[in-house]
């Protein structure tokens, strides 16, 4: 019985992991060299074939200008992934600065930052992002900043907790006792050990950022329409939802699959790295 459950827990995730790797691999190819996956142009208009349902010719169907939807999804990957990576990078930059400052300086500064984070939690991610857009006006750069700021508070709290936990470790005390300068201890020991478990969180964060960014575009407040960013595709398809379901469901399905794949890989990494972060 025990061996059976053991093999089960070993084989099941690995099937999922392989699938996830395939999806993420395809995604990277689409983002870097979309022409390897499709030889069509994402902007080729064919007024003789508008709003065609999915077929062998057009696996995802066509939009209201007769453009091939699958081609547009493939070409949209670069912007969507870029948005996800950019926003996550920004969020973690803010989070690392706040988290480390709070945990290392301590005292009043720690209290102040913790309080500010508590206030930020009172603003739901999407609302914080919409506030940023209202101030700056919608654009690609605004979308990155909005999602980055929107998701930073949660990560900042994790980083702070992580630094506080690692600081207690024997090897940090040993390094300090050996007379290493404070900054060197932080750089060589504290930083890598505090951040390692968060690698998995970064993975999950990229998936989340892609979803938030596409949600902004879906509301017509993210990347403006001529783009084939995935959320913008969803926004463009909305007027036709009662007649042409594929314009909404299929690009959405791609986003779901990518998020699931990235999340699954993040979980696997988390188990491998023995992540303490939730």
């Amino acid at each position: 019985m025990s061996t059976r459950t053991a093999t089960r827990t070993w084989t099941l995730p690995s099937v999922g992991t392989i699938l996830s790797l395939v999806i993420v691999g395809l995604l990277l190819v689409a983002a870097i060299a979309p022409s390897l996956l499709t030889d069509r142009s994402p902007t080729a208009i064919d007024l003789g074939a508008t709003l065609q349902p999915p077929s062998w010719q057009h696996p995802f169907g066509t939009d209201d200008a007769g453009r091939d939807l699958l081609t547009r999804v493939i070409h949209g990957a670069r912007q969507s992934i870029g948005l996800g990576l950019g926003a996550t990078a920004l969020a973690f930059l803010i989070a690392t600065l706040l988290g480390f400052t709070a945990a290392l300086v301590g005292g009043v500064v720690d209290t102040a930052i913790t309080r500010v984070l508590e206030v930020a939690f009172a603003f739901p991610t999407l609302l914080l992002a919409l506030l940023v857009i209202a101030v700056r006006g919608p654009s690609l750069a605004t979308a990155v900043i909005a999602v980055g700021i929107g998701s930073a508070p949660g990560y900042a709290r994790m980083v702070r907790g992580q630094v506080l936990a690692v600081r207690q470790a024997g090897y940090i005390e040993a390094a300090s006792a050996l007379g290493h300068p404070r900054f060197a201890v932080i750089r060589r020991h504290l930083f890598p050990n505090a951040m390692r478990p968060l690698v998995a969180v970064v993975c999950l964060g990229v998936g989340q950022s892609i979803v938030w960014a596409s949600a902004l575009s879906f509301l017509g407040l993210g990347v403006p329409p001529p783009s084939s960013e995935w959320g913008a595709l969803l926004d463009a398809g909305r007027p036709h939802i009662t007649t042409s379901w594929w314009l909404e469901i299929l690009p959405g399905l791609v986003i779901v699959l990518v998020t699931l794949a990235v999340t699954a890989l993040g979980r696997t990494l988390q188990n491998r790295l023995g992540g303490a972060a939730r």
Partner: protein
Amino acid sequence: MRRLLFKVVSSVVVVVAAASITFFAQLAVPGDRATALMNLQTGQEKLWTEQELAPLNQKYGFDDPLVVQYLDYVTGLFRGDLGTSYTQKRPVTEVIGGQLLPSLTLTVAALAVAWLLAVGMTLLTVKRGRILSSLGSAWEALTASLPHYWVGVVLLVVFAVQLRIFPIIGGTGALGTVLPVLTLAIPLAGFLGQVTRDEFTHVLEQPFVTTARTRGMSDLGVRLRHVLRHAVLPAVTLSGWALGALVSGAVIAENIFGRPGIGQVLVTAVNTRDLPTVCGIVLVVAVIYVVANLLVDLVYALIDPRLAAR
């Protein structure tokens, strides 16, 4: 009791701090506010003279010293004044007022339905054999990561467009509320279910469960009377947080189903860059979030008597 008082005081602090953030967000708009406002109201893009801008500066108090503006804003909040909308030229409270109830109905109903789904799944599938258990946890993992807009669009296409069970444009009637509620509840139920399932599995192995069983209690009885009470605790804590996620989702659901509510007003306001309205909505949501978390603390004490005694 003192713990509760402390909670209330720190909640007020959080609200004032949130108000400060929305106040400075309004200042952060690039360019002169009166000019931006004049452009917005006349639909023209040009430089206005001092005389033309004077009435606006007067009306909105843009000329006052910053400290005065700040104090006006914060004290105004306690009188229920959220400022004046740039586009509609009437108080923000009036703009939001009527829209608050449909949104609140939507989120509270979604929270309730999500809890029903999560608890139902937990009672039915945890430790009920390998197949049921894995099906349950797979379903939860899948639904928990679905974006709201996709759930909404799929429900709309399947149940409103294809099967025609529900109206496409929802409105606030009971029938029109079903799909928006499910849009919010399905992902949340997955999330709550994951948390409850872990705890439920853990609690089922506790000695007091064995004791209850040896007393001859039925399996369902044990699950309902003893295990569930413990297992929902972590998810109750998360319900306060979930409200934030629900509000984000509500903005999207209202948009998909054309349902009136603050989400609709918010999207329009962001589009027209009507900052007082945007800030007003964000602030109202922050207050609701803070109050909800206070309530969660109370509920927690009710479920877990160990906390109330403290």
